[in-house]
């Protein structure tokens, strides 16, 4: 039993991590809380669904196409509504809420409010002792680990990644040494949105795709990045592990409905006790 719960928790952690990495990336560079993340998570899953069901493409290539579409969509959103890094955080939050309402409504009107199933090609079930894990879940874990590694490599060793780190540390200093802060913001936002949509596409075969599927995942993502420290990638990974395990254990042993509530309570406690998070920069950023 306990092995099974740990396996489930790992899958949950992997999905949360994909969400949280995107959010923390956007927060680190643009210093705004992106509330369209959950809607893009759902939109990714639905685009993926239509590529598979309407155009008859196989699962994996359509995942890449949908991720690219989400990248473009994220770039468009950033240019139109969150332009540059100068937007006031409160305006960005209100704007994000409005946009996510629109996106969810559009999804509902195009694809309907009923949950849609996406068939995964990885339907084989692996047996580990007395517990089981679907191959799809293994794929999710592998994808999330590789995303984390790729992101690390991108930020650490490429020139653009260096610019991203520079902007997230000090925007004005980055301007001064000739970093194009606007482009960095654009690419980061698009990248974060793409990560959100990948999260949605990978989750949809497990939980079915519904227009409001992103709401809980988004709040979970916020809880994680607040726990780990806003803008810190390592913090997001550790936070994802903590909340993924807590969420799964509460859902298994206490009650299914309280899983999300525990994440909220965690977030409130962290905000109150250590606003900079576990791995955030020192000092009160609030």
């Amino acid at each position: 039993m306990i092995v099974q719960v740990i396996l489930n928790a790992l899958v949950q952690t992997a999905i949360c991590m994909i969400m949280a990495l995107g959010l923390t990336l956007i927060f680190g560079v643009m210093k705004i809380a992106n509330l369209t993340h959950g809607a893009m998570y759902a939109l990714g899953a639905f685009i993926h669904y239509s590529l598979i069901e309407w155009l008859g493409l196989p699962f994996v290539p359509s995942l890449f196409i949908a991720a690219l579409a989400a990248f473009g969509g994220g770039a468009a959103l950033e240019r139109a509504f969150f332009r540059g890094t100068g937007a006031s955080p409160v305006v960005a939050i209100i704007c994000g809420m409005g946009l996510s309402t629109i996106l969810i409504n559009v999804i509902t009107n195009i694809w309907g409010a009923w949950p849609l199933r996406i068939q995964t090609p990885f339907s084989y079930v692996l047996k580990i002792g007395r517990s089981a894990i679907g191959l799809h879940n293994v794929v999710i874990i592998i994808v999330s680990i590789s995303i984390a590694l790729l992101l690390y490599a991108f930020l650490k060793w490429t020139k653009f990644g260096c610019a991203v780190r520079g902007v997230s540390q000090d925007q004005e200093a980055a301007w001064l040494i000739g970093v194009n802060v606007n482009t960095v913001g654009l690419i980061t936002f698009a990248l974060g949105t793409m990560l959100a949509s990948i999260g949605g596409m990978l989750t949809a075969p497990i939980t079915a795709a519904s227009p409001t599927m992103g709401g809980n995942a988004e709040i979970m993502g916020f809880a994680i990045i607040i726990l780990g420290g806003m803008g810190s990638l390592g913090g997001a990974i550790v936070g994802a592990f903590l909340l993924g395990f807590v969420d799964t254990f509460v859902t298994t042993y206490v009650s299914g409905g309280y899983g999300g509530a525990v994440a909220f309570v965690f977030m409130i406690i962290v905000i109150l006790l250590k606003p900079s998070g576990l791995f955030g920069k020192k000092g009160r950023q609030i």
Partner: protein
Amino acid sequence: MVRILDLFKKRTTYFFIAVVILACMLPLYFKSGYSLRLMVTIGFSIITAMCYNIVIGYMGYPSLSQSVFYGVGGYTMALITLRLGVSPWIALIFSPFIAFAVGYLAAIPFLKLRSMFFAIGTLAFTGVVNAVLINAHKITGAEAGLRGIPRLLKSDTAFFYIEIVLIIAILFGTKILVESYWGKILTAIREDEDLAPHLGINTTKYKRLAFALSAAFTGLAGAMFISYQTYISSNYFTIGSSFSILACTVVGGGGSLIGPIIGGLIVVGVPEALRGVLKGLYIWRPSFMGAILVAVILLFPGGIYGGFQKLAGYLRKRGEK
């Protein structure tokens, strides 16, 4: 006394009286049950938006937990009348006090946060409360809800008039608040919260009181709304309903007296009024709300009322030249 006499010299006063009389005559022309119900619903959105205006407009805190207090008032009404069997009027007296207490308790931790973090914190608070409402279904009835809550007044028309009275009361209450010492403190907090304590203002105390006061009136409105519906369900108090309260206030113009009224009429009223005309478009109602909110926040940060004022000022300047 002189100040009251001064009011009779202003054009605004007569305009205000005319609007009130027109509003009171509305039920004479719109007699059908549907339009009355619609007007009462718009009235409730306006009342909640006006209460919320104190927090977001005058104090500058973008709270996303307003529907929690609406729900506290509503559940107070539902549980007291259904479980204890007392008259709804007694429950109506209790609900603002309980909402005030909950609001004050919520203010203690959350008002330590600012701007974006306050918004996310209160968003999480709404989420927790909603999860509790759904899970404690033996008490709250969860999504299926509780039925048979007694009505305060029998007819919808009476509800409409009581709403008008409440709106005018809140309007004057807000005006007195804004012009008082307390209102000046709230504006000081909005403009520069770090500077305000240096002028000898106990910002914490005033912030908490203003937040709790707004919660209390929201709770009163929630109790009335639930008594009007005779039905309560956790679906009324989600993050989405907090969002629509925010939309009404921000679209109309936060920080102005009549902004929330305009916002309520536009955000809730316009889609309903067009429902008969554009039948197929009704499913796009949330998009309309979102789009108008995004457009207003990006183009006129002062809301429609603020934009109107700016336009009027611009035209007046052109006229003088």
